[in-house]
């Protein structure tokens, strides 16, 4: 039992270590909560890239080989950290609002962990999308493309495999206990979102605390925290939006690379992430070409584009396809016109529930956030967030609207609320801008000695 817990902790936390090291190497954001969230999000992305490289080089997915580079990097970082110790700034004192946010964060994470670890993975999307592949990768020690192609009715074989590759560590460690422990990665994803929301919206004021509660305690988030990768994608999008702000503010030379890394992580997490990441990298390329030409910027675009391309290329090379999207490009636009009103009505019902039983599963995030977010976007520097939200929602509306006739109701019922969840990222960021604009300058919660010294 103790060996299982320690082994699982090692498998779950080594990717977080990878994320912390990688994010710090790129300069970090200078805000502890955001940096911690980024480590939780980017770490599994780096590990997924590492495993793809291992597959290309023929290195088996054995735990010692997987973990070794990150502990070597940790050793190097520790040596360098001694030299930098004198540069650290002071920590802001703990305030009552921050304490309240911290308590809520712990309660939500622990409650979700209890749900996650009580019942083993055995059914539904988390088998068809992650655990089935994690078992292949972990027990066979490679991507095993011939095995992927031969899987029997595997569901979403075209799914980007960030979650499955990270869960594969647990299947490689012990395939018998992995169904009980593999959901740890989902708990860490919720923690990443909570940390990001706490920093983006929360801060040291009570208004920020209310905004944080709106985001964090939403049943719409909690119900998809277990069994899906959607909360992980939501956290990635929040960080991506925040990183875009650092790029736009020319905060530091590492900002474009951090954005590229987050975009790449989104691309490896889900197909929806791939679509958003591709747009993000295209915008970054435009920005670098027109506003901020530098070798680091060009390198960031190359890294982002490479990470976006890697899974589609491998899928094509492996000959993986899925019955679910076989006909996606054949459908006429008239179908969109026909079905879009039903999609809009469904999503509106999810966003703005009225009955108490609906509020208990959908929450009231959009009731408060959307008007406030639109209000916040009156500021010119926040308008791009509203634009991003509209573009993101429009993309999903299109994808849902061209669903095959007869499939729309089933698709809305299963995917609709989760697609809506992804788009929460932009209102969360807009809420943050609103809260930030309404609080005194000395209430920023940014350590003056942080990386840039600029308020966040």
């Amino acid at each position: 039992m103790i060996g299982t817990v320690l082994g699982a902790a090692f498998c779950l936390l080594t990717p977080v270590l990878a994320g912390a090291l990688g994010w710090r190497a790129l300069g970090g954001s200078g805000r502890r909560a955001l940096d911690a969230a980024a480590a939780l999000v980017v770490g599994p992305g780096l590990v997924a890239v590492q495993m793809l490289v291992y597959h290309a080089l023929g290195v088996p997915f054995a735990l010692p080989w997987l973990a070794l580079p990150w502990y070597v990097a940790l050793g190097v970082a520790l040596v360098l950290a001694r030299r930098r110790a004198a540069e650290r700034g002071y920590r802001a004192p703990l305030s009552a609002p921050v304490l309240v946010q911290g308590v809520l964060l712990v309660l939500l994470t622990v409650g979700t962990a209890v749900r996650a670890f009580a019942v083993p993975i055995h059914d539904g999307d988390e088998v068809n999308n992650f655990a089935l592949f994690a078992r292949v990768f972990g027990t066979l020690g490679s991507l095993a493309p011939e095995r992927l192609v031969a899987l029997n009715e595997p569901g979403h074989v075209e799914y980007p495999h960030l979650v499955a590759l990270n869960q594969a560590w647990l299947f490689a460690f012990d395939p018998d206990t992995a169904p009980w422990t593999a959901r740890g990665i989902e708990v860490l994803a919720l923690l990443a979102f909570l940390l990001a929301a706490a920093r983006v919206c929360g801060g040291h004021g009570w208004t920020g605390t209310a905004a944080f509660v709106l985001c964090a305690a939403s049943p719409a988030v909690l119900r998809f925290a277990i069994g899906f990768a959607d909360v992980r994608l939501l956290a990635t999008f929040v960080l991506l939006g925040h990183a875009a702000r650092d790029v736009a503010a020319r905060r530091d030379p590492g900002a474009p690379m951090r954005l590229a890394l987050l975009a790449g992580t989104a691309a490896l997490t889900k197909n929806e992430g791939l679509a958003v990441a591709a747009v993000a990298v295209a915008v970054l390329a435009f920005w670098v070409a027109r506003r901020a030409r530098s070798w680091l910027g060009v390198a960031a675009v190359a890294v982002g584009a490479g990470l976006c391309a890697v899974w589609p290329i491998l899928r094509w090379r492996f000959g993986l396809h899925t019955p679910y999207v076989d006909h996606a490009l054949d459908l006429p636009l008239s179908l969109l016109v026909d079905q879009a009103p039903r999609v809009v009505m469904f999503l509106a019902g999810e966003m703005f529930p009225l009955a108490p039983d609906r509020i208990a599963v959908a929450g009231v995030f959009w009731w408060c956030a959307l008007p406030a977010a639109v209000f916040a976007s009156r500021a010119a520097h926040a308008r791009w967030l509203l634009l991003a939200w509209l573009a993101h929602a429009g993309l999903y509306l299109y994808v849902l609207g061209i669903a095959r006739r007869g499939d729309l109701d089933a698709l809305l019922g299963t995917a609709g609320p989760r697609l809506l969840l992804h788009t929460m990222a932009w209102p969360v960021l807009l809420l943050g801008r609103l809260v930030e604009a309404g609080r005194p300058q000395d209430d920023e919660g940014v350590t003056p000695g942080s990386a840039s010294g600029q308020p966040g």
Partner: protein
Amino acid sequence: MRSSFSIVLRAAFVLGAAVQLGAGAVFSVQALRRVPGDLSTVAAGPAAASSESMRALLALPDLLASVPDDAPVLVVSTLAAVQLEYFVLPRPMLLLQDLPQAWIDLAQQFMPEVVDEVRRRRERLDRSGRLLTDERLVQRVGEVGFVVVAGPPPPGLALVRDRLVPRGEQPGFALFEVRR
């Protein structure tokens, strides 16, 4: 923008947060209440499992313990929608899935929104040679060392029954070794 950040918006935030906290608490309590039931299912073993998937998770590891990791296994399934390969991996698995027209008729009656998908699934299974037929069953049994029957045995199993040696049974599942 700061000046227009009115007391109304602040009040809306606080009210919304209070409702959200209540909704989140209700959701969390309901979700946690379901956990003890699932835990007792796990503790009680496959016979008391709450779903066919959970039954497979609890039954198949023990049932397949004697089957080598590289031995091909034929799974003959009459269960509706269980991803059995997840529980049989890493052993190479051949699947013969029963999906009679009667299931499509039932879906038409009770879950019309999934009828098209069920019909397409039947077509996909047939195209890939994984739809259960007597001919395929006879042929596939000759290609593997072990057979797992998931769910009630199909009538066609009688055609190959004399080639199958029982190796174990758990609620809902039976393991056979193919006689050479």
